[in-house]
């Protein structure tokens, strides 16, 4: 007997949606072994990482808080990824969006107008789009690799935020701490449940995911993005402009990342500080892949990756696990997912050798 590997004529739909669960399972099993090797009680560690955060109102509300930016950025990135447009600078676009909306909040500090928050959202989206337009321009005009430029710009954005909160935007009455004034009420998102940090941004995140699904399923540009990704030759033959798709992928994902940044500073943070994201822009890349680049899948994977953040914090408090475990889990999860893709595209068959049947 021997194993024979052959490509499937069409990818397996069932496996496409089943393999993410397989990847999660493999990650948990690996985590179990890892915790054991590190000398922790693996059952307790797994319990406090994946289960106990879901058993309290606080844990659930924090899950909503952290899932919001991941879902918003994830659905945006997925559009580009479908067409092989690799925006990996969402972290930077998020930061610029936060700066733009934060600047609006500070400019109208103390103002009670209902228009402050919408204006912040517009500023955040535009900020993110503007920042993403740099790699889009360099890619379409000169053919510069968007992976490298969007990533380099992330470092620049973080340093820019730092410049501002250590300088012009520093709270004059803040004892020289590197942070802006606290935003006033008109610049803050409402809290959904009293006593938690869950803000209306989570609800918007779900609406945005549905909107992107409609965009990708029912519009011409959505169709073009999918064709460019799946059949580049057909797309060229049909006359779809590659440059339009690049601009579209980068502007939409940049704008949404900027909006996510707006929600962070107008929601859980409430001011500008040197670090406003624990890597949401990078984690959202995993969220997009784990959700199979489908907005509805991304909602699920967004919640799961949010759990990896909260579980990491919780396991640190409860069993003293280092916080870095979160990053290891996130990387492992993407590894296993990519490995399991093999099953989607190839069929493994057990073949009996002729000699064996003869004997």
């Amino acid at each position, binding site marked *: 007997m021997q194993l024979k590997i052959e490509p499937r004529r069409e990818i397996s739909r069932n496996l496409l949606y089943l393999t993410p669960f397989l990847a999660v399972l493999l990650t948990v099993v690996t985590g179990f072994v890892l915790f054991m090797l590190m000398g922790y009680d693996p059952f307790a560690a797994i319990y406090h990482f994946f289960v106990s955060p879901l058993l309290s109102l606080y844990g659930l509300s924090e899950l909503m808080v952290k899932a919001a930016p991941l879902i918003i950025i994830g659905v945006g990135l997925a559009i580009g990824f479908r067409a092989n447009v690799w925006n990996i600078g969402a972290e930077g676009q998020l930061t610029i969006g936060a700066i733009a909306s934060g600047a609006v909040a500070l400019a109208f500090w103390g103002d009670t107008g209902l228009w402050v928050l919408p204006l912040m959202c517009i500023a955040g989206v535009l900020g993110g789009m503007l920042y993403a337009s740099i790699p889009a321009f360099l890619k379409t005009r000169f053919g510069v690799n968007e992976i*490298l430029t969007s990533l380099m710009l992330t470092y620049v954005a973080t*340093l820019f935020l730092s410049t501002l909160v250590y300088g012009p935007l520093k709270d004059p009455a803040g004892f020289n701490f590197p942070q802006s004034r606290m935003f006033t009420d008109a610049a803050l998102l409402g809290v959904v449940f009293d006593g938690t940090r869950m803000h209306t941004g989570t609800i918007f995140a779900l609406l945005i995911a549905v909107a992107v699904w409609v965009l990708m399923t029912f519009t011409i540009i959505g169709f073009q993005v999918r064709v460019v990704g799946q059949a580049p030759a057909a797309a060229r033959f049909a006359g779809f402009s590659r440059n339009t798709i690049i601009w579209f992928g980068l502007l939409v994902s940049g704008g949404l990342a900027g909006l996510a940044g707006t929600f962070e500073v107008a929601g859980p943070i409430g001011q500008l500080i040197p670090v406003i994201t624990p890597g949401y822009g990078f984690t959202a890349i*995993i969220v997009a892949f784990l959700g199979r680049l489908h907005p509805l899948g991304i909602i699920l994977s967004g919640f799961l990756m949010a759990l990896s953040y909260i579980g990491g914090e919780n396991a640190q408090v409860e069993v003293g696990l280092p916080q870095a475990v979160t*990053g290891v889990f996130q990387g492992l999860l*993407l590894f296993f997912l990519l490995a399991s893709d093999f099953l989607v595209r190839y069929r493994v068959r057990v073949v009996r050798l002729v000699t064996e049947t003869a004997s």
Partner: protein
Amino acid sequence: MTDSSAVLVLLTVISAATPLLFAALGELITEKSGVLNLGVEGMMLAGAVAAFAVAVTTGSSTLGVFAGALAGAILAFAFGVLTLTLAANQVATGLALTIFGIGLSALVGAGFVGIAVTPLPKLAIPGVSDLPVIGSLVFGHDALVYLSIVATVAVAWFLKKTRGGMILRAVGESDLSAHSIGYDVIGVRYRAVVFGGAMSGLGGAFLSLAYTPMWAEEMTAGRGWIALALVVFASWRPWRVLFGAYLFGGVTILQLYLQGAGGLDIPSQVMSMLPYLATILVLTVIAAGPWKGRLDAPACLGRPFRPST
């Protein structure tokens, strides 16, 4: 110390350039075989933490250097299993490798933050190293600095003059033809990927054992990505990688000196942006310049290959 400040500046440029040179040479070989590994940053971090942990634990920085190379090679092998054996998307897998490397190195390194290590010894030659200017510029570095130069020569010679180098280039330019005349495409690519990982690991080891020398989370600060950009900048040619690495080492040191000089009324963070902005600028100039179209990217770069039999 009798050296002028200019000599001291040049010395720091050399140490800022060396980690970039290692990582970019490794990635050059990987990409020449037709594989794009975006996980350089993750492999460098793994190399940095492994080298530091082993050097602190055993007291031997030499063992540390080996551990750094090994750690990078192991991560690269995992990348190979996914992209070469399982034909996974190279861009996504490279990103996964970076995210995993950042997390794993932070986890392993948690116990080593704030610890000092004996830096790699300088190879001083009595008499010669004491010569003015030449003495400290050419002699008196640690072994890794020399190794990075030797590696440049070796990579250039391998690609151009050896049979193995020719096969590597053939595999990167046309995997199907190379396969049909009987070369083991996947095997060659595995070796190229693992070599790239070991070199990234060495670059990381240099950072944590010689450049800083200490361990801090995400201490590579984007050097892995700059190394990737250097390969494009160099049009996949080893000597230009050397030139590019020293150019970027120069930019890094320049902004440090400008920050230190203080006379300028520019916030230090803005100065710190320089290496990243320079990377974007250089990539744009290379892509837009009159020599565009002659960039010489390997034809099969990033394309998965699975033999049909």
